[in-house]
Structures are given as structure tokens and as C-alpha cells.
């Protein structure tokens, strides 16, 4: 199992990449902070909202390693995956605010984001519910010889679901082009990883399926990206699936109502030191990026978020009429 070390390894000195990744990490962080503000202002259309603050390097590192034609599937905690994959900030904000301009036309809110145009096949409110969907997409793309890869994000908690097992096992037998991304934030609501499983190494779990597996520092965006590239490369070369174990931490509660009182404060503080945004920031500083550059990034992001919220606010609320007509893709005469 991965043991977090205090600094991010500067295994990569390509500053263009690093600055791109940093920008994306911060963009997700600020977007979710913005969402929490909207929530406090009662501007969200649903009471369900799970932010990924502290876990951004997982979304950013993996999505950076994907090609445009690839697919992802995501979770109830999926704002970061959506943005990192290239989903529009305004589609996210409008969705959360229940507007027509939202990713799901205001019907899905925080737990259901999607953008088929960029291969985002949907986030899911059933923990594990999307893993077989990702597997099926991988099956299809493999059958067609398309050389696309699927990355399926899910949490540590999801690994205890039967459907995780059925999906990984099938993908292994069929050697499907899929990366199972275990976004291990150490907790599934109040259940610690050690009570989710008696085998905490993802690498060893992968052996149980006869596939590749790795345990990686999920706070180090470069390490995540490197491991993801390896896994995606294997998948694209027809060498089958990987279980990609990324150790990370959810800095806030499970959902807005949760004070995480089941967690040890010392543990929280230890992980706070390994804030993925901070680590990337420090590394850029070490590479002589200056205050001005950071401020410009801040401003760009703030402007993007403000514009997105404005678009959302100007968008009409989700329409009730189409609640009836959009149940089927092929409506039938017979329906009443």
C-alpha cells in the first residue's frame, strides 16, 4: 500500500505540463468553493452535493493522460472529473442550479453530470453503478477495434460492491481497454478503508484478478499522470485493464451535512499538508514561477467561474413539460 511522503516528487521537469496541471487543479478547487457558496446561498436545485476538495490531483492527473476520443465514467463526487475531462464550467454551474443550460438540462444536479461530446458517459448516484457501464463501453470499443480507452473513476467504498468485482473480472478475462481508477480518499462516508477491506493494497487486489495494479500517491498530480499514462498505454496496446490505486483524502465532510466527527483530527491535519494544489504550487515555485503568474491564473479562473454562474443564472429553469416527453428516446403512439 502507498504511504504518503511529505513532498511531491519532481520526477517531471516539463514545466508546461506542470503549469497546465496546476491551473486545472486550482480551477476545480475554486469551482467547488464556488459551489459551496452557492449552496450556502440556497441557489442549488437539489440538497445533494459532494465536493472533491483535496482529491483534485486524481481527476486532473488521469484526465490529462487521456486522449480526446477516450471515455470516462464518474461518481457522486464528480465535479472534478467533469471539469478535468473538459466539461464546460457553465454546464456544471447551470446543472447544479437546475437550469436548462445545465449538463443534464437541470435534471441531474450534482450527482448526474454528463457530456457525450467529450466522452463523459455520466456520473452516477449509485456507488459502483457506472462501473459495468464503463466496462461495456470498453467491450464495445474493443470489439470495434477503435483503440479507445475507458477510465472509470470510483471510490474506495465502491470496491466492496459486487459490481466492482463482476466488472473487473470480466474486463480481465476479455482484456478490455479500461483503467479502473480507485480514488481512495480513505473513507466511504464514515467507513475507513481498513474496514472496507482486509487487503489494502490495490496492487495485490489486481493480482487476484490477474491484471496489472499499482498503488500511487494520489496527491502528487505528476505521479498520478505518470501512472495513468502507463495504464492507459497498456489498455490501448491491448494488454488489458489496470487497477489504478490512488491514495487521496477528502478534506471536507462526505456531504454538506457531515462534520466528519468519525475522523481523527490528527489524520485530517496530516493529509492537509499534502494538499495537491499546494504541492503543485510549491513545485512551480521551485521552478521559478512568480507571484504574478499565480495571480493571473487566479484571475482567469475567477473570471471563468463568475461568467459560468452568470450564464447559469440567465438560463431558464429546467422545463417541466419535457419531463413527460423525454422518458423514452423513441416515444410510442401507445403511451398515455
Amino acid at each position, binding site marked *: 500500500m502507498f504511504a504518503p511522503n511529505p513532498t511531491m516528487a519532481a520526477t517531471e521537469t516539463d514545466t508546461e505540463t506542470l503549469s497546465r496541471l496546476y491551473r486545472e487543479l486550482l480551477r476545480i478547487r475554486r469551482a467547488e468553493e464556488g459551489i459551496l457558496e452557492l449552496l450556502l446561498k440556497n441557489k442549488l436545485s437539489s440538497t*445533494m452535493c459532494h465536493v472533491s476538495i483535496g482529491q483534485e490531483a486524481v481527476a486532473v492527473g488521469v484526465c490529462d493522460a487521456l486522449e480526446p476520443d477516450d471515455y470516462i465514467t464518474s461518481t457522486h463526487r464528480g465535479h472534478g472529473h467533469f471539469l478535468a475531462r473538459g466539461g464546460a464550467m457553465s454546464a456544471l454551474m447551470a446543472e447544479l442550479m437546475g437550469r436548462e443550460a445545465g449538463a443534464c438540462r437541470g*435534471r441531474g*444536479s450534482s450527482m448526474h453530470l454528463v457530456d457525450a461530446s467529450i466522452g463523459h458517459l455520466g456520473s452516477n448516484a*449509485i456507488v459502483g453503478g457506472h462501473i459495468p457501464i464503463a466496462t461495456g463501453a470498453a467491450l464495445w470499443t474493443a470489439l470495434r477495434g477503435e483503440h479507445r480507452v475507458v477510465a472509470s473513476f470510483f471510490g474506495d467504498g465502491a470496491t*466492496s460492491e459486487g459490481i466492482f468485482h463482476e466488472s473487473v473480472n470480466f474486463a480481465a478475462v476479455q482484456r478490455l481497454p479500461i483503467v479502473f481508477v480507485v480514488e481512495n480518499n480513505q473513507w466511504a462516508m464514515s*467507513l475507513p478503508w481498513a474496514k472496507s477491506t482486509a487487503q489494502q493494497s490495490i496492487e495485490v487486489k489486481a493480482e487476484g484478478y490477474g491484471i496489472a495494479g499499482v498503488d500511487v500517491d494520489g496527491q502528487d498530480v505528476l505521479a498520478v499522470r505518470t501512472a495513468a499514462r502507463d495504464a492507459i498505454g497498456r489498455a490501448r496496446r491491448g494488454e488489458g485493464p489496470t487497477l489504478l490505486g490512488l491514495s487521496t483524502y477528502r478534506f471536507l465532510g462526505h456531504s454538506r451535512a457531515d462534520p466528519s466527527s468519525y475522523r481523527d483530527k490528527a489524520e485530517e491535519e496530516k493529509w492537509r499538508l499534502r494538499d495537491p494544489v499546494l504541492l503543485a504550487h510549491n513545485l512551480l515555485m521551485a521552478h521559478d514561477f512568480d507571484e504574478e503568474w499565480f495571480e493571473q491564473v487566479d484571475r482567469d479562473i475567477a473570471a471563468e467561474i463568475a461568467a459560468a454562474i452568470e450564464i447559469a443564472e440567465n438560463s431558464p429553469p*429546467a422545463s417541466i413539460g419535457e*419531463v*413527460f416527453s423525454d422518458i423514452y428516446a423513441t416515444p410510442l403512439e401507445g403511451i398515455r
Partner: protein
Amino acid sequence: MISTLTPPRTVTYREALREALFEEMEADDRVIVMGEDVGKYGGAYAVSKGLLERFGDRRVIDTPMSEALIVGAALGAAVVGGRPVAEIMYMDFVTLTMDALVNQAAKLHFMFGGQLSAPMVVRVQQGVGRGAGAQHSQSLEAWFAHVPGLKVVAPSTPADAKGLLKSSIRDDDPVLFIEHKGLYARKGTDPGREHTVPIGVADVKRPGVDVTVVAWSNMVHTALDAAELLADDGIDVEVIDLRTIAPLDMQTVLASCRRTGRLLVAHEACQTGGLGAEIIAQAAEHLHGLLHAPPRRIATPDVVLPANTTLERALVPDTDAIASAIRDLVRS
């Protein structure tokens, strides 16, 4: 009316459930609680708060995220002498437990020639109210009314919740115990320690002579509110709270309909194939020529529920919708 007596204590639905668990666990050490986040977290809707501290982690078991296992293992514990109360966090996740519930728990007693039985309770929570969306808001009680061997209850008040949970725990058959996310904070009379409510008996929550309204779970309150509204118009509504979904107490429903001559069933589940169909069907079979107006259902239309409180409110029958359905019924 001013009284000098101490008013009866009130409790919330949540507290009533919690007290039932506490009392049954104290009375019978075979009663255990298991599920996701039922321990320190106290349950997603805070029903099991304090149980871990009182009874320890051998009787209050936090499980991994494995819904099928939760119900299947509860069944296994029940078969060998336990009386487990398993919690499935949202009714929508019961989809993951259908084998254990339907093929195993419901069938085991008969299938094994009466050798085994399954004294277990599966607590779930369903319904709208939080904009929780397509996968966290469904009302699925009708499925389970179609599974011989299961008992299914869906109480609407703190007293019924407590009384039925106690009866469910003491029952020797698998009971699906359906709560509603909109009910937990609702207050009502505290029925006291020894209160039980029999499974299989409906309750007339408001007597009336003009029309029979049948509801259960949260919709009972909407129906009662509608009845209050209509009282001002001189329409006297009888509201029957089914309380038990399976087996259905149709005797109470039919007797009421015979008196009022009019029947409305109100439910939150989508209309087609909902439990309302069974109730209307039995009324039609047994009351031919006795109803003054066609029996009617009012329910959520056959839609996928949006994760959007505004749309949700527009879709699920509210007080006005029920009141106007009753008005139509009385007029016709």
C-alpha cells in the same frame, strides 16, 4: 381547549424509530443492527444514533458498501437464531438486494418445508423531498406487495413507526420496513414503551362519510391536510392509513368504501403498476355497483424523477391536487 393535564410527550418519527430499536435491543439480545454507517455516523438519516455507544460493535455493525451482502448476511444470521435489523440507506439501493429479499428471505420458510425461518427486518427509506433525483427518490413498495412471503410496512406517524418496528422485530418473517425521508422530523404523540402495532391492520386516521381516501407513508399527511381543507367546504373525508403494504388490510378499505361510496387512492410512487392499482382492482371486484363514482388514483405520473426540488414538487401530488381530486370525485 386549555387543559391542566401534562400534555403527552411528543417525539419525532426518527426518535420513535430509535426508541423502538433501543427498547427491542435491550429486551432481546438477539436483536442486532447492521448496515452502512449505522454505527458512529448514526445512520444516514440519524435513526441509529447512540446505538453503537450503548450496545457496542458486536450488536451494531458497520458493514462495507455491500448491499446484497447486508441483506443476505442478515438472513443468514436470522436463520441461525439472530433477529437482525438491516438498514439499506435508500430504497433505490434495494435493487442491489433483490435476490436476498425475493429469492431467499421470502421463499426460505416455505421452500425448506418449514425447517427454517427468517425473523429479520430490512429498514429502508424512500421518497421525494430533497431533490435527490432519479436514483435516490423512488417509491418501490408495489414490487414487494407482489412477493409472497414478505411482509411490508410503511408507517406514517411516530407512534405507528415505533409500534410497527417493534412488531416487525418480533415477527418471525422477513419484514421490509419502509420509512420516508420526509417523515423523520415529523412530530407526534409518544406512545410510550410498550406500544406495538399489529402488522396487517390499517388505521382510519380520520373518519368521514363522503369519500374514502387510502394512503400510506408520507402521503397520509398530504391526504389529511386535503381533508382539512375540504372540511371547510362541507366535504367529510375518511382517510385510511394502510400502514401495512403486505398483506393488505382490504377489509378496512372495503368497509369504508361501502359506507362512503367513493374511493380515491393517493400515492407517491408512479401511477402505473403502483399499489393503487391493486386497491382499486379489489374495490372494483368487490364493490361492483356500490360505488357512486368511478374509483380514482392520484399518484406521481410515470416519469423519471428529476434531481430538482422545483420539478419534484410539481410532479408529486400535493394537498391541492388531492383536494381537487376529491372534489371531482364527490361531484361526479
